[in-house]
């Protein structure tokens, strides 16, 4: 046995001596020299390239229902407002994304529910179709490991999500129908209350005082199937009901810290702490209104005031007068757009969440094509600027990897592991 051990040790030594040590360039940090901006950017871009990047929320399926919209074509966001297509994902080094199917809340009866389901199915089919049409560059992803495997193949991973549980209607079986179609997280509610839960922003106020009884059943069913539960848009009561009920960690796919920016859509310190205690994650979103208090726009206000001062009363205008005035307003709006939040604001929220609960409970969900897009991260082609800012603030590669995908993939794995346990138990 002793000879065997000695032989193994010698073999290991031989292998080790033959293995080329990893090439590593001396960085400014290692040599003690001050790192230039160009060096920092180069270092950040190299990190951005190495880590798996994942954006957990984009409303791009809304774009996919525009007649003629082609995900394989690069669009100019300043012409069309579009923020995501496959060329821009590649340009920005965005490896994976959750495309959220969204159906606006409408009548809550059988007919309304069945229509919502049909519309959701249409958007899911459009998303799947876009992956099939672009199979050389993207792939449909269903499990956490699919993103890693697709990245290894040099492809982008597209996950399907559902924003607003309205298409579930009042039929619990629909949760499994959507799971089978590929949906891997469901945002329980959107801007107005639905049959599942109360919204944080419904002007009529709460209806269920949290999750409804049916919403509780949906949460349990999502646990059973392995669908992540998204509490963005939900009221605070819904958050607490959900986290108390769910056996798996939950996520907020596009929400920020309320202590940094006061907004009902953002999460309080207690909510962030609670989600972390339960192993979940808050995905910081690039939506100006949730990132900072909106500043004024005095130049535009002055230009519009001057234009209005010279106009006839609207009731005395001809159609041509009105058209000309609208054109003037359009020109002013384009010349003096509302200032956007910046990537620094976004990383302020990341910093805050990290300071509150550590590095393991924060991620990124840009909300592109749903209002997201800030200065420096205006569309998918610019997401590397988040990494640059993280590097500038001293985050390590390991930490950046957790922020970009490690944390949410951990939650995703736990959610799917729970579902497997339940399936195994049910089979016994």
């Amino acid at each position, binding site marked *: 046995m002793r000879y065997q051990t000695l032989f193994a040790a010698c073999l290991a030594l031989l292998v080790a001596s033959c293995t080329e040590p990893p090439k590593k360039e001396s960085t400014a940090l290692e040599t003690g020299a001050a790192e230039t901006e160009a060096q920092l950017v180069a270092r950040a871009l190299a990190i951005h390239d190495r880590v798996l990047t994942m954006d957990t929320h984009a409303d791009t399926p809304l774009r996919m229902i525009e007649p003629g919209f082609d995900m394989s074509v690069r669009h100019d966001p300043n012409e069309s407002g579009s923020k995501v297509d496959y060329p821009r994902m590649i340009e920005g080094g965005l490896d994976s994304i959750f495309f959220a199917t969204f159906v*606006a809340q409408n009548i809550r009866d059988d007919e309304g529910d069945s229509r919502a389901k049909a519309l959701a199915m249409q958007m899911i089919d459009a998303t799947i179709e876009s992956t099939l049409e672009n199979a050389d560059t993207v792939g449909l992803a269903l499990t956490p490991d699919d993103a890693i495997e697709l990245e290894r193949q040099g492809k982008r991973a597209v996950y399907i999500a559902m924003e607003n549980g309205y298409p579930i209607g009042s039929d619990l079986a629909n949760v499994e129908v959507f799971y089978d179609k590929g949906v891997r997280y469901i945002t329980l509610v959107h801007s107005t209350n639905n049959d599942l839960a109360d919204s944080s922003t419904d002007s009529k106020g709460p209806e269920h005082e949290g999750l409804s009884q049916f919403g509780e059943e949906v949460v349990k069913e999502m646990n059973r199937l392995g669908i992540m539960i998204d509490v963005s848009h939900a009221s605070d009561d819904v958050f607490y009901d959900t986290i108390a009920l769910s056996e798996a960690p939950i996520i907020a796919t596009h929400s920020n810290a309320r202590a940094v920016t006061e907004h009902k859509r953002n999460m309080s310190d207690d909510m962030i702490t609670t989600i972390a205690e339960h192993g979940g994650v808050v995905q910081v979103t690039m939506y100006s209104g949730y990132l900072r208090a909106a500043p004024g726009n005095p130049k535009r206000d002055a230009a519009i005031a001057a234009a209005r001062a010279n106009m006839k009363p609207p009731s005395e205008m001809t159609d041509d007068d*009105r058209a000309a005035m609208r054109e003037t307003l359009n020109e002013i709006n384009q010349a003096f757009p509302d200032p956007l939040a910046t990537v620094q604001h976004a990383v302020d929220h990341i910093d805050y969440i990290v300071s509150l609960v550590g590095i393991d409970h924060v991620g990124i969900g840009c909300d592109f094509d749903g209002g997201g897009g800030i200065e420096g991260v205006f569309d998918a082609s610019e997401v590397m600027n988040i990494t640059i800012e993280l590097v500038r603030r001293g985050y390590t590669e390991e930490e950046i990897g957790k922020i970009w995908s490690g944390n949410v993939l951990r939650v995703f794995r736990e959610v799917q592991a729970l579902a497997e346990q339940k399936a195994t138990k049910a089979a016994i």
Partner: protein
Amino acid sequence: MEARKRAALCLVLLVYCVDLQSHPLKLSLCQIEYASAEKTLTIELRLFLMDVNEALVFDPDNNELGLGQPDEVPHAEGMLLDYLNRFFYIKANGKQLALKIKSMSLNGQGNDAALGLTFSYPSQEKITSIEIKNAVFTDLFFDQSNVVYVHVDDDSRSLMLNKKTPVHKLVY
């Protein structure tokens, strides 16, 4: 449920623009429904009141027209229809429907207030095509998105129209 009652019960459907000062995504919603049994084609259009005010009186916060409110001024509806006729139409089986507002309501408050318009047309013919033009507010905002849901009997479809693609025809 009868289309009229459905329209009356509709919640505010407009979404996203929670923080209108930054106004990150401009959106309107249109729902077209035709049920063979009722032989009625109904159009519901939901527009942010701020956008309507900006288009008609060039000031999002100027509510002098009082649209959808008890103090609505007499010429307000005419101004709104003049605007809509430039940027919105529906053609059923190739025939353009004259826009005549059946009912108007205001839902929500403050920046979230949305104007709901209902148009209703008797239609004995089976629907074979619906052509939609929806370019409302694209003259004001380059990134205006107009979502359209079309329900013809059990067939539901959605599409998004904007400045680049303002018109689309659905064939049944």
